[in-house]
């Protein structure tokens, strides 16, 4: 009965609206996924600080906009803050030799306090709400809406268009920069570091420096996504990064399942598409009132997809089990 009811509700809502919301958030989050891709795929480093960096971007941008700093400047400063966060994780890992996963967790944990303190700089009560509202109209999307509303659009259409255009613009810029950068001499050195660090050093690459640089770029992008996400809602939330690592990985895996990893350009496109598909699915889950299960489903999906190559190998080798398949 409950299922039937859910389906009825689902059909009742405007599907176009649902898709639009999915695409809007997907475009912003694709920037975050591109950042995850740099640490997870290019550097082969599981950087868990994402869950602190994403809200860091949101909080830095939010508090600056709250104090009337131009939204574009606030967004760029949020990127810099993200890069600094990446430096912290990178230094913990390369200089203090703390394992990557732990380094990320340490940064993430510390950032929670910093993010709260940042929001606390406003006159609002942030301790109970863990968030601070600065208003949609003051953010990048709001400012752009002001520009186009004069064209005779109604408010809601202008909001949608402004969100789509501005986030697509940022995503486009990030795409082009990433495509170019990882084909440059430095970019290739970062890729080599992630692929085979011993070889990279033998080729004269300062691998520690490359890890640091890679993490800076990765976290700058994640903070940028956080800053844009907060401006889309007009609110900065300390908890907005929760579950981000799983979202990022799921989006990367969905995209790769569709497009493969043949060329780098295709890989970047697959990540963007994967993220949008993920957020479309998320919207469906919200409508079906089962969104609380989505993280669990994503987590299981990642396990299955990561396990498939291992299981394939294991069934191929006659003797060894999972243990041997790893080698």
């Amino acid at each position: 009965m409950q299922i039937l009811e859910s389906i009825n509700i689902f059909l009742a809502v405007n599907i176009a609206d649902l898709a639009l919301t999915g695409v809007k958030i997907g475009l912003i989050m694709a920037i975050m996924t591109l950042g995850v891709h740099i640490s997870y795929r290019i550097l082969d480093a599981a950087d868990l600080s994402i869950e602190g960096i994403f809200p860091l971007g949101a909080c830095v941008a939010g508090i600056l906009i709250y104090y009337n700093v131009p939204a574009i400047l606030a967004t760029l400063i949020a990127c810099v803050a993200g890069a600094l966060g990446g430096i912290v994780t990178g230094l913990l890992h390369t200089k203090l030799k703390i394992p990557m996963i732990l380094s990320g967790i340490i940064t993430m944990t510390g950032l929670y306090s910093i993010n709260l303190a940042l929001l606390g700089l406003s006159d609002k009560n942030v301790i109970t709400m863990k968030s601070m509202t600065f208003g949609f109209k003051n953010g990048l999307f709001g400012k752009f809406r002001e520009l186009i509303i004069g064209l005779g659009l109604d408010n809601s259409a202008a909001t949608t268009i402004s969100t789509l255009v501005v986030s697509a613009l940022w995503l486009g810029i990030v795409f082009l920069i990433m495509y170019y950068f990882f084909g440059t001499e430095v970019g290739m050195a970062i890729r080599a570091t992630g692929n085979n660090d011993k070889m990279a050093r033998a080729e004269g690459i300062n691998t520690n420096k490359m890890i640091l640089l890679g993490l800076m770029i990765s976290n700058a992008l994640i903070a940028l996504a956080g800053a844009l996400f907060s401006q889309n809602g007009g609110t900065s939330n300390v908890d907005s990064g929760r579950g981000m690592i799983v979202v990022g990985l799921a989006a990367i895996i969905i995209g790769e399942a569709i497009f493969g990893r043949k060329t780098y350009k295709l890989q970047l496109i697959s990540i963007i598409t994967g993220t949008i598909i993920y957020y479309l699915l998320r919207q469906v889950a919200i409508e079906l009132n089962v969104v609380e299960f989505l993280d669990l489903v994503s987590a299981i999906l990642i396990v299955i997809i990561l396990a498939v190559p291992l299981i394939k190998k294991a069934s191929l080798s006659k003797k060894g089990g999972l243990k041997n398949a790893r080698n």
Partner: protein
Amino acid sequence: MLEIKNVTKIFNKELSADERRVALDNVSITINDGDFITVIGGNGSGKSTLMNSISGVFPLDAGEILIDGVDMTHMPEYERAKFLGRVFQDPHMGTCGNMSILENLELAKRRGKKRGLRWGFTKEDEEKYVELLKGLDLGLETRLSQKVGLLSGGQRQAVTLLMATLITPKLLLLDEHTAALDPKTAKTVLTLTNEIVTKENITTLMITHNMNDAIKYGNRLIMLDHGHVILDIAGEEKKNLTIKDLLKLFEDSSVEASDSLLLNK
């Protein structure tokens, strides 16, 4: 010229005296420009430790290493790379499997140089690489954009060799680079190595497990045992060396030749 002066390397230094392992014990070797040295010795003789000491994988416990008079004892591994070309035993080690042949070669082209925000590929480079790959005679010249991970072990070692010598290094370090290959491929890669080294007159240090190869190649032979140099011969003396002599030396050094050495004679 590379000078290895009184180099000592001890593993497990923090443990008690009988648990420590002295991998290199006060070793001094002078490598002259143009030398092609083969290094031989049983397991645990210090061959690989010697290689890693030169390339800076770990800090030394004593001694110093100079290249053309420049002290590189405390230089990090990536900085020494500007003097050294390296090929490892494991074919996976010397290349990036996820990157194409072209990308790997472009990486090697910048060894020891500053890497900037320039686009990493040029048409001229590509043409040059096609010519070099043709020289390998492995059909790789048409597979420039393929990932190195798709190549066989022998092909990967050949590409690594090309990368290590793309910018002529002051010293080429070959760490049993054919040991993981089947005999036929090993022979091909060794012949190729000899060709490149002699043609470009590259100063080379080649570790090998194979006595035949140690005798056949190079102008100088060094034998290590328990962290000591027990034989260092060159020129005519080396030319006249036989496997019998080498085996005798192993016996005289009161250490049994390792199984792999005997098997490879």
